[in-house]
């Protein structure tokens, strides 16, 4: 039902949209990183789409895949129009930064801080980009595929405890 | 001057001060003193204390505390009055008299004026 969002996207940003797909009823559009903020702003303000609620922002770590390692995922929804779309933005490993979307949806402030904490993707223009969950002394970004699951960095231990 | 009438009052005072004092002294001498630096640091929900507890705080706290004190003492005076209310409202000749009620009504009225003044000056609320 939100196929028309993808059509509008293709007609408005033919160069920015790399590909669109429809898997199990979820409309997905992969957008270039440079034009990502313009596409998101268009999706939010355009009378036709009006995606006023961003559900969640997260990242995927495609370690070992050729091409860009990270991929930002924006899950958007419109409460008035009752339709939604998923925007994915590939982010290269050597320069893991992207524009923040808190200017459009302030609700994604903490979600982006969590993506920074867990995946190490910097958000340009984020009001206060600090670690969301881990403590400052923690080194590394735990949800990356190359971070071992049980590698603890303990802050305090009783004497005699490893 | 029948000083004897006040003996129960002295007894209660001595008992209360004695009991409280005894307990505190016992705790001070018998209780184990095992102070470590960590234990003496102020409790801040488990985090390192921020700033010093000696910082200056707003005068409004003092204002609210004093006002509470005034009306608390007012209530404290009502207790002995309420206990003797039956005797106060009968004259020796057995005819009902409004003395008991009148005394407390006047007392409350005075403090009512104080309450009205404080209420209008908005000293009770916080902002």
């Amino acid at each position, binding site marked *: 039902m939100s196929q028309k969002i993808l059509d509008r996207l293709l007609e408005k940003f033919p160069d920015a949209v790399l590909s669109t797909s429809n898997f199990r009823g979820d409309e997905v559009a992969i957008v270039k990183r440079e034009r990502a903020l313009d596409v998101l702003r268009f999706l939010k303000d355009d009378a036709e789409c009006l995606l006023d609620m961003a559900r969640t922002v997260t990242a995927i770590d495609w370690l070992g895949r050729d091409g860009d390692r990270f991929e930002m995922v924006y899950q958007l929804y419109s409460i008035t129009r009752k339709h939604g779309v998923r925007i994915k933005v590939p982010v290269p490993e050597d320069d893991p930064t992207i524009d923040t979307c808190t200017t459009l949806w302030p609700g994604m402030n903490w979600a982006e801080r969590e993506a920074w904490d867990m995946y190490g993707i910097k958000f340009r223009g984020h009001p206060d980009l600090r670690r969301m*969950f*881990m403590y400052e002394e923690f080194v590394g970004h735990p949800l990356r595929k190359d971070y071992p*699951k049980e590698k603890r960095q303990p*802050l*305090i*231990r009783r004497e005699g405890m490893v | 001057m029948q000083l004897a009438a006040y003996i129960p009052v002295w007894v209660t005072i001595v008992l209360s001060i004695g009991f409280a004092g005894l307990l505190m002294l016992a705790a001070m001498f018998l209780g184990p003193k095992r102070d470590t630096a*960590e*234990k003496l640091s102020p*409790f801040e929900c*488990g985090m390192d204390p921020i700033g010093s507890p000696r910082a200056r705080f707003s005068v409004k706290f003092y204002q609210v505390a004093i006002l509470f004190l005034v009306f608390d003492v007012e209530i404290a005076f009502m207790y002995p009055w309420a206990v003797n209310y039956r005797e106060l409202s009968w004259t020796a000749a057995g005819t009902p008299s409004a003395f008991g009620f009148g005394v407390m009504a006047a007392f409350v009225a005075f403090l009512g004026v104080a309450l009205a003044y404080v209420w209008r000056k908005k000293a009770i609320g916080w902002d």
Partner: protein
Amino acid sequence: MGLEFTTTKMADAIAWARKFSLFTYPFVTACCGMEYMSTAGPKYDVARFGAEFPRFSPRQADLLFIVGTITEKMGPVLSRIYQQMAEPKWVVAFGVCACTGGFYQNYNTMPGADQVVPVDVYIPGCPPRPEQVLDGLIMLQERIQKHEGHSQVRYREEQALANKQEALAQIRLPAAGK
């Protein structure tokens, strides 16, 4: 007999009084908190054991109830609160996360609260049923009565050490006098 008889009887009497009036500091973090509510609630009422009165300041508590998962970030907090409690103090690990970290074996979950504080009674279960918690509490009360709590043992060792040093000091004095 003399002093020892009275002190042991006195210590037992005090231990009996302490075990039935435990003031708990509920260090509640996770799902076990829901079961802690049920334990303190009307049906499984923990007040029957005298341990119902939660004190939210370590100064006034003598039983630290570690309820739920302890993460690495929470470690320093737990250790500081344990040290700010007055002796004698006891620690109960409520739930398998507090005992061994449960099925969270990862970078931010501490494998058990005893990595940071000495625990007296471990209550397994995820979350443990209120009956299990009451059983754990009874076990703790037996330990208190037998003076086997960690802080009680440490206190006795320190007393013994102090007495020994004192005895040593007396022996050396006459030699200096001659």
